């Protein structure tokens, strides 16, 4: 059995996939914890669709797809904040308007694309086995930026999340901090989209953080548990897909979902 596990490690694309999944799981834990605690899962889902025009636009302009996606994510994050504060609409309506509009823009641009290449297809439906060396460096850079940002504003973000009124009383820029969080969500979603595609990406962002939420007494432990759990599920999912010959992205998502259900049952038994 150990040899069977070592077997796929001879394949470059499999090793890159393992590294990519682990890196993104850590990244998802860092941001997913805030997404779960702040009830922003819907925004994560919206964001994964809204990055499409950035990806297609970058593809048409022959620039880095990841860069295009990040630009679209930031634009969407700020757009949602702008629409909800200017219109007086509830945030869910603002999200709906912005994300469907962005997605439609992406599909419209896509219809102008001369060829529907595998490169682009990978980005749309996700494929961990298609992760390149450059993608890994990109993911590492994004993880570094996100981790540093969260570390730098952690105490402010904690106050804004636990007690937004007190945050306003002491004069913290509550809206800007919220926008910053949305931008970070956007950056993370860009990478999860690359691995598992638009429709499944929110799973990586929130599932392991939600599992960790069931047990962790404080924020730090919640992040650590989520990172470990997400990485383990990612690795297990990748191996399963290799041996069972199933699509890698959805298999990883299923393992994450299964882990959450087990955690839920365990918690029920404990109480």
């Amino acid at each position, binding site marked *: 059995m150990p040899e069977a596990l070592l077997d796929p490690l001879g394949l470059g694309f499999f090793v890159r996939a393992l590294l990519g999944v682990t890196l993104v799981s850590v990244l998802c834990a860092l941001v997913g914890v805030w997404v779960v605690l702040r009830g922003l899962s819907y925004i994560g889902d919206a964001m994964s669709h809204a990055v499409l025009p950035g990806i297609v636009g970058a593809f048409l302009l022959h620039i880095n797809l990841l860069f295009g996606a990040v630009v679209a994510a930031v634009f969407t994050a700020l757009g949602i904040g702008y629409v909800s504060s200017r219109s007086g609409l509830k945030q869910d309506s603002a999200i709906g308007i912005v994300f469907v509009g962005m997605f439609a823009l992406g599909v419209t641009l896509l219809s102008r694309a001369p060829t529907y290449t595998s490169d682009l297809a990978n980005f749309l439906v996700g494929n961990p086995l298609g992760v390149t060396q450059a993608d890994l460096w990109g993911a590492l850079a994004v993880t570094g930026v996100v981790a540093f940002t969260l570390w730098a504003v952690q105490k402010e973000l904690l106050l804004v999340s*636990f007690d937004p009124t007190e945050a306003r009383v002491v*004069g913290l820029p509550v809206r800007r901090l919220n926008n910053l969080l949305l931008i970070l969500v956007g950056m993370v979603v860009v990478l999860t989209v690359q691995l598992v595609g638009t429709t499944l990406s929110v799973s990586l962002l929130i599932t392991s953080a939600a599992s960790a939420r069931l047990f962790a007494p404080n924020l730090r432990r919640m992040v650590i548990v989520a990172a470990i759990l997400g990485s383990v599920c990612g690795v297990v999912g990748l191996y399963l897909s290799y041996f069972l010959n199933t699509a890698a992205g959805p298999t990883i998502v299923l393992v994450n979902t299964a882990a959450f259900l087990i955690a839920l049952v365990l918690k029920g038994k404990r109480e």
Partner: protein
Amino acid sequence: MIETDHLSVSYGAQVALQDASARFVPGQFSAVIGPNGAGKSTLLKTILGLVTASSGRVNVSADLGDLRKSSAYVPQQQTLDWAFPVTVWDVAMMGRTARLGWLRWPGRADRDIVLDSLEQTEVEGLKDRPVQALSGGQRQRVLLARMLARRAEVLLLDEPLTGVDAATQEKIMRLLQEQARAGRTVVMVTHDLEAAARWCDQLLLINRTVVAQGTPEQVYTPANIECTFSSSHLGHTHAHA
């Protein structure tokens, strides 16, 4: 000194506060008393600038400086998400967040202040507990510890006696009284008339507008109480001390 000068506040068509004039003086423990929907919380929030007045103004004397820097606010307990994964220590340390400023981390002095605050509210033994596991009275004392950790000159509390037992209530009132004796401006919103009359130096009776302000002896009269807690507010007597 904090003074509200003919303050009116509306939420859309709903008038929350009308022509409310009151003053809160350093060294005094004041209570803002009135029924639900009387505008008690609105008064605190307007003083803090969380709500904008439609007319009138809030005057703050120069010694208090910027009220946001010099005040600590204790919100109604039930407005917070107690399922949030933070410990008692974490919450008390939030009192230092604004004092520290951006990109600065709590040091020895901050930890000493937080520990001292937790000791004053008698929850230092719970410091590593998640707040989720606390009782209502314990949660309130944690919020008071956070307030103390801010080391503020103005203390504004919204219903700090809700959900606490009699023994805890006494401890809380004693603590707030001590804070006032130390020269701070302490203002507490409550609907517990008896506790307020027993412990506070000043009572402000409101029901949309100010019914009366003064010492308990001055304003704790059947007519004022009737006027404050009846649905219509006919009287408008000022009894400034």
